[in-house]
């Protein structure tokens, strides 16, 4: 009996003593963490993709809380919705960034870009790129081994067997930029989604002179500058033998597309163009 009570008393007093020590230690070494970090993290998508430029959502939340001006911070996954929620928690102002999406600046399908040699090294785009220009005559285009697809965490990409090129599923793409970083040829671009999700861009990155590019790929940009001359808004420039359409100044008039002799300018999500005759008929009706 005595033994039992001694045991209980000893253990209880040990417990009390430890609790008191722990209390003071906790007071002494207390780390203050802004409770808003947790709140902000709660509204973030928890994708931890790194698309914002920070290592994971927690780090981004910390950055949001810490920064005075959060207008240059953006979560591409959550978009304007998430950012405004986070801003309202913090009582800060946020500018809604235009939604973006990844686009592939290469349209060198198996048909337009014949294979000149066969690569049998390790199945990796970056290794192939470190060894040589690729299986086709174009040393700037897609190598087709899908390192971008492997990098995508959002199931927004797949390899099209017929064209040999990766396809971006717009509805899944959060424009985190993982594919951009993975591509050794740097031919994936994060581009403004555009009004009604409409986009118009040059799907080529070949910096060779026109003749060389054309020989390598029938859908290459040959830097003829026809599109540049056709553009009424000065949104197109030809830099290093490739035309570029500036999404900020482009007004989506589509005057450049029919001018391109190789079809290197791609349009996305536009309604089919009406023929002029039809237009007249429409009016008559």
């Amino acid at each position: 009996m005595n033994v039992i009570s001694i045991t209980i008393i000893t253990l209880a007093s040990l417990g009390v003593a430890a609790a008191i020590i722990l209390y003071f230690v906790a007071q002494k070494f207390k780390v203050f963490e802004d409770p808003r970090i947790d709140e902000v993290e709660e509204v973030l998508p928890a994708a931890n993709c790194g698309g914002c430029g920070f290592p994971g959502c927690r780090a981004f939340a910390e950055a949001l809380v810490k920064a005075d001006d959060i207008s240059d911070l953006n979560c591409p996954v959550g978009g304007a919705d998430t950012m405004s929620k986070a801003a309202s928690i913090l009582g800060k102002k946020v500018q809604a960034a235009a939604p973006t999406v990844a686009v592939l600046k290469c349209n060198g399908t198996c048909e337009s870009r014949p294979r000149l040699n066969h690569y049998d090294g390790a199945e990796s785009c970056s290794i192939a790129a470190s060894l040589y220009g690729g299986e086709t005559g174009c040393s700037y285009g897609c190598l087709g081994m899908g390192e971008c697809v492997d990098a995508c965490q959002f199931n927004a990409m797949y390899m099209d067997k017929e064209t040999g090129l990766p396809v971006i599923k717009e509805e899944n793409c959060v424009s985190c930029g993982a594919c951009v970083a993975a591509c050794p040829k740097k031919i994936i671009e994060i581009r403004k989604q555009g009004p009604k999700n409409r986009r118009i861009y040059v799907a080529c990155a070949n910096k060779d002179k026109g003749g060389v590019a054309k020989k390598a790929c029938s859908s290459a940009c040959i830097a003829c500058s026809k599109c540049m001359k056709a553009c009424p808004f000065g949104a197109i420039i030809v830099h290093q033998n490739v035309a570029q359409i500036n999404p900020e100044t482009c007004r989506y008039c589509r005057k450049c597309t029919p001018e391109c002799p190789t079809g290197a300018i791609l349009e996305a999500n536009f309604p089919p163009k009406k023929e002029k005759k039809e237009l007249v008929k429409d009016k008559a009706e």
Partner: protein
Amino acid sequence: MLKTFSLGGVHPEENKFSAGQKIETLEIPEQVSVLVAQHIGGPAEVAVDKGDQVKVGQIIATAAGFVSTNIHSPVSGTVLKIDTIIDASGYRKKAIIIKTEGDEWEANIDRSETLVKEITATPQEIIRKITNAGIVGLGGATFPSHVKLSVPPGKKCEVLILNGVECEPYLTSDHQLMMEKGEEILVGTKILMKALNVDKAIIGIENNKKDAIEKMSELSKSYDGISIQPLKVQYPQGGEKQLIDACIGKQVPSGKLPIEVGAVVQNTGTVFAVYEAVQKNKPLFERVVTVTGKSVKKPSNFKARIGTPISQLIDAAGGLPEDTGKIIGGGPMMGKALTTTDIPVTKGSSGILIMPEEIAKRKPSQNCIRCAKCVSVCPMGLSPYLLMTVSEKSVWDRAEEEKIMDCIECGSCSFTCPSSRPLLDYIRLGKGTVGQIIRNRTNK
């Protein structure tokens, strides 16, 4: 027991089909494409314009900086254009295209075959002549020779080591050069010894070239301080660090240059070029190229002008065999598969190897079975299996810790792997990335 290096190494089938074939001078091509980046370091700056008349041996591109070299016209004729062409790297690079007209050489080049033994040039003159002649390491690494000969202050060169190893299977260009131009190589060695102020030189030759060992030993008797070192046949003995280890038994510390242990290494082909530059005023615009392969009709050693399309060399060796799977620039271990036969000969082209389809095809990669063969053959004492994994998973800090930068890319690991894993492919990728990270860090 013959000497060799202390760590790792493999012994692939030698297949020296072109051994003993006399060096044939190849016909001057109708048109040459001279690349401006034929060496390690900055590409040379073009010094001619379209339409210019050039002579053989005239400078057509000048060195851009210390680690760079001059490039000389290999033919006489008119500059057609300055354009980009696909080179051995598989990418388009800038080149000077010259149409051949006649064969008129610069007046100061001595075209006679007579041996000039007496060395009148001072050490400074020797180095200046080598710099002007655009000489690079002809073993394949193409490192500008004058940089190697400029010993940094505070360091002392004690021994000059000549690389007559030619450890790559198939290749025989250095072997044949030693057989035909042995005396010139020895005079070249004397020139380098004078430039470096050393009294000892060792020529390392592998034991599969017994005739060359015999001949060079005989000739070297009348040259003070030059000795011939027969070596056991082991790949990659031609690697600078391996050769130093084999010849003088000293190990170059990680990340350091051979001068750290008092050695300077030069290839025998380079030494012959030095002889020609110093004694004959002849810049580097031609070299010996081996064209070989199992199905090649006439495996040969050609003396070809820089800029000659390799298709011409292949034709001269009996044409492209029907069963060709790969054309490799260099040897089978370290060479690179070429994408077209329009690629021109460069200063670094030691050989063109034509591999039949069945041998050239890589076997599918299987799982690592942890046999550690790659570790035991690595001449640098690395763990290739681990380096491959960390490169594959992009763990760059670990790759740096595991000394990925020490890899000499000899390919012994990939050669020996029973699972045919692409070890070197990934290690090379990792080496490139880690090298970039280190450069960014030091530039900051």
